[in-house]
C-alpha cells in the first residue's frame, strides 16, 4: 500500500491508511493503543534478540568509520599538507564537508522545533531520530574545522578562554562567530534531544528485564514518574526550547554563510547567502531524514508509525525549500549580470563553463531538475523507492553546491596570476567517507539503545486520549 497513489474516487473503507474524515493519509495507522505503542517502540531497544541485519550494518559502518580514524591519524602525523588544500584553494573539502554536514543537521531541528511551534502533529513520529541525525551530523561537521586549523590539539584556542599568552579571539571575524553558533547549536540540540527522551527512558526503565538495563535507563530517566505538575513544566520547557531552537537554527547557517558573504571574493560577497544557505540546509536535511527513515521504517516494521503521510509531507517540504534554493541560484546569476561587475560576471561564466563547469551542471541537475520537476506528483511523492533514490540524489547535489561555491570562487579570483586549481587527495576522500561511517555507526547505536520514536508524543495523538464528559466551557474559560 505504501506505493499506492490516492485517486480521487478512493474508498476510505478499503484502505485503512486513509483517514475517512479528511481523505488524507493517516498520520499513524489505526488500531494502536497506549500499550501497543509502548510495546512496539520499546521492544526494539529492550529485546534480547538484536536483529542480525543491525550487526551487519554496524560492522560495515564502523569499518568505514575506521577509515576516518586512519585519515585523522595520518593528518595529525603529517599535517594538513596531506589534503588538497593549497593557495588559492585554501578551503577545499574541509569546509565543503563542514557546511554539508551541518546543513543536514538543520532538518532535525526544523522538525523538532519549528514544526512543534506550528503544531504539526505528524512530526511526532519522526522528530526523535531527526534530532539524533542532527546531533550526529553536527559531530561529523565539527571535525572538519577543528582538523582544518592544522593543529587540532590547539583547537580550544578558538574559545574565549583565559590563557597565559594573553591572546583572545577576534570577535569581528565571522570565523569566531561560527564557533559560537556551532557550539551553541550542538549544546542546545543535545539538551533538547535528551530532555525529550527522559520520559521515554522512564518507560524503558519500567519495562526493562535485565538488571543492567534497569539500572542504566533508571539513571537516564532521572527518576521520571509522570507527575502532572512535572509534565506541565516539561511541556513549557519543550515549547521554550522549540522557540529558542527556531531562531538558533536559522542563525547557524546564516552565520556559516557569513564566512563566505563577509569575504570580498566574487561569488561569495552576496546578501542572498543567508536565506539561500538556510533553505539549502533544510532541503538537504530533509533528504537525509528520508534517506534514514525509509530503510529504518522498513527494517523495524514502523510503517504504521512513520506512514506515507510523513514521507509525503517531507517531500513537500523538500519541494518548498528546493524552490527557494532554485530562486537563490537564479538570483546569483542575475546579480552577477546586474551588478555589472566584471569580476562577478566572469566568476559566474567560469562557474558554468570553466574547467569545473561540470560541477555546476551536476548540481543544477541533482538539486533542481530532477527533484523540482518530479516532486509535484503525489504518485512520486508517495513512491517510497523513488523518494529514497531522490533523497540520495539531493544529498549528492547539495554536496556539489558547496563544492561549486567553495572551489570555483577560490581558484579564479581577481588576478589571473594567482589562479590555480583544486584537486582533492585520497586523504580528503578517506576522511569524508570516514565521517559517513561514523555518522551511520552512531545512528545505528542510537536506534538500538534509545527509543527512536517518542512514545509519549505518539500516545498524545491516539484517539484514546479524548476525554468525554469534561465541561468544555469551563476549560475554555480557564484557558482564556
Amino acid at each position, binding site marked *: 500500500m505504501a506505493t499506492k497513489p490516492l485517486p480521487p474516487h478512493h474508498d476510505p473503507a478499503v484502505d485503512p491508511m486513509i483517514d475517512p474524515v479528511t481523505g488524507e493519509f493517516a498520520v499513524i495507522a489505526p488500531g494502536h493503543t497506549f500499550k501497543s505503542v509502548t510495546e512496539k517502540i520499546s521492544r526494539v531497544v529492550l529485546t534480547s534478540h538484536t536483529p542480525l541485519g543491525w550487526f551487519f550494518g554496524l560492522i560495515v559502518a564502523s569499518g568505514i568509520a575506521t577509515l576516518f580514524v586512519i585519515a585523522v591519524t595520518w593528518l595529525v602525523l603529517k599535517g594538513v599538507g596531506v589534503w588538497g588544500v593549497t593557495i588559492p584553494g585554501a578551503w577545499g573539502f574541509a569546509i565543503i564537508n563542514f557546511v554539508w554536514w551541518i546543513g543536514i543537521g538543520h532538518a532535525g531541528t526544523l522538525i523538532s522545533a519549528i514544526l512543534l511551534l506550528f503544531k504539526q502533529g505528524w512530526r511526532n513520529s519522526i522528530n526523535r531520530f531527526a534530532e539524533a541525525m542532527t546531533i550526529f551530523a553536527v559531530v561529523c561537521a565539527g571535525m572538519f574545522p577543528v582538523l582544518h586549523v592544522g593543529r587540532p590539539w590547539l583547537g580550544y584556542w578558538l574559545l574565549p578562554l583565559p590563557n597565559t599568552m594573553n591572546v583572545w579571539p577576534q570577535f*569581528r571575524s565571522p570565523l569566531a562567530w561560527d564557533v559560537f553558533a556551532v557550539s551553541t547549536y550542538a549544546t542546545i540540540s543535545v539538551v533538547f534531544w535528551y530532555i525529550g527522551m527522559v520520559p521515554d527512558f522512564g518507560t524503558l526503565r*519500567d519495562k526493562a528485564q535485565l538488571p543492567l538495563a534497569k539500572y542504566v535507563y533508571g539513571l537516564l530517566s532521572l*527518576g*521520571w514518574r509522570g507527575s502532572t505538575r*512535572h*509534565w506541565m513544566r516539561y511541556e*513549557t*520547557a519543550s515549547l521554550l526550547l522549540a522557540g529558542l531552537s527556531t531562531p*538558533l537554527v536559522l542563525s547557524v547557517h546564516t552565520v556559516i554563510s557569513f564566512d563566505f558573504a563577509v569575504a570580498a571574493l566574487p561569488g561569495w560577497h552576496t546578501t542572498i547567502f543567508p536565506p539561500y544557505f538556510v533553505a539549502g540546509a533544510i532541503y538537504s536535511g530533509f533528504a537525509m531524514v528520508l534517506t534514514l527513515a525509509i530503510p529504518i521504517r522498513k527494517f523495524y516494521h514502523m510503517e504504521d508509525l512513520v506512514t506515507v503521510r510523513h514521507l509525503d509531507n517531507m517531500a513537500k517540504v523538500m519541494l518548498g525549500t528546493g524552490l527557494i534554493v532554485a530562486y537563490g541560484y537564479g538570483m546569483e546569476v542575475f546579480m552577477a549580470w546586474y551588478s555589472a561587475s566584471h569580476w562577478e560576471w566572469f566568476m559566474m561564466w567560469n562557474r558554468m563553463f570553466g574547467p569545473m563547469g561540470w560541477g555546476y551542471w551536476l548540481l543544477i541537475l541533482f538539486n533542481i531538475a530532477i527533484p523540482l520537476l518530479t516532486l509535484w506528483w503525489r504518485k512520486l511523492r508517495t513512491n517510497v523507492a523513488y523518494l529514497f533514490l531522490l533523497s540520495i540524489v539531493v544529498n549528492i547535489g547539495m554536496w556539489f553546491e558547496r563544492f561549486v561555491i567553495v572551489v570555483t570562487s577560490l581558484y579564479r579570483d581577481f588576478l589571473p596570476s594567482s589562479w590555480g586549481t583544486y584537486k582533492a587527495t585520497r586523504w580528503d576522500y578517506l576522511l569524508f567517507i570516514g565521517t559517513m561511517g561514523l555518522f551511520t555507526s552512531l545512528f545505528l547505536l542510537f536506534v538500538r539503545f534509545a527509543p527512536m520514536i517518542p512514545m509519549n508524543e505518539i500516545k498524545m495523538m491516539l484517539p484514546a*486520549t479524548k476525554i468525554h464528559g469534561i465541561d468544555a466551557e469551563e476549560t475554555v474559560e480557564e484557558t482564556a
Partner: protein
Amino acid sequence: MLVREGVYGLLAEFDTPGAMVHATEAARDAGYRRMECYTPYPVEEAASALDVHRNRVPLLTLMGGILGLTTAFTMQTWVSVIAYPLNIAGRPLFSWPAFIIPAYEWTILFAGLSAAFGMLALNGLPQPYHPLFNAPNFRLGATDNKFFLCLEAIDPQFDANETRAFLEQFHAVSVVEVEL
C-alpha cells in the same frame, strides 16, 4: 483522621484518562488539595483539575537569556577594547554590530540551558527514590498505559478508610496504599 505511620498516600489506578480526570475533579470538589496525577503523557485536563496553571520555567528562561546576552556582550567588549585591542582594518575597537552575533548565540544558549535545567530543578529531578515506586502497580503502568491519582496522607482531609471509600466509587482498577 485515621492516618497510619509510614503511609505516603492512597494510589488509585485507572484505565482511561477520563476516569482519572473525573476522580481528580471530584477529589478537588471534596476538598482534597495534596494530590497528584501520574500519566504516561501530559494530560492537560488533569492539570486543570489539579488547578495547576502556571509555572516558573518561563521566568528562569528569561533570566537565563538576559544573563547570556549581557555576559557575551560584556565579554566581547572587554576582550576587544581592554584585554586585547587589535586594529582590524581600521574598525573601531568597540565594534558592537559584530558583537551582536555571539551575543545572540549566547542568549539562546543560556536561555535554553535555563529552560532545560530549570525545568528539572523545579521538578526536583533527578530523584531516584520516590515513595510511589514502592506501590506494586505503579511501575507496571504509570509510564505505559495506566493513569494514577494519588491522594497524599499529608492532606488534612485524608483518612485511611474514608479516602479509600471515596476513591473506590470512581471505578478505579485498584486503590493501594503507598508506603513511605
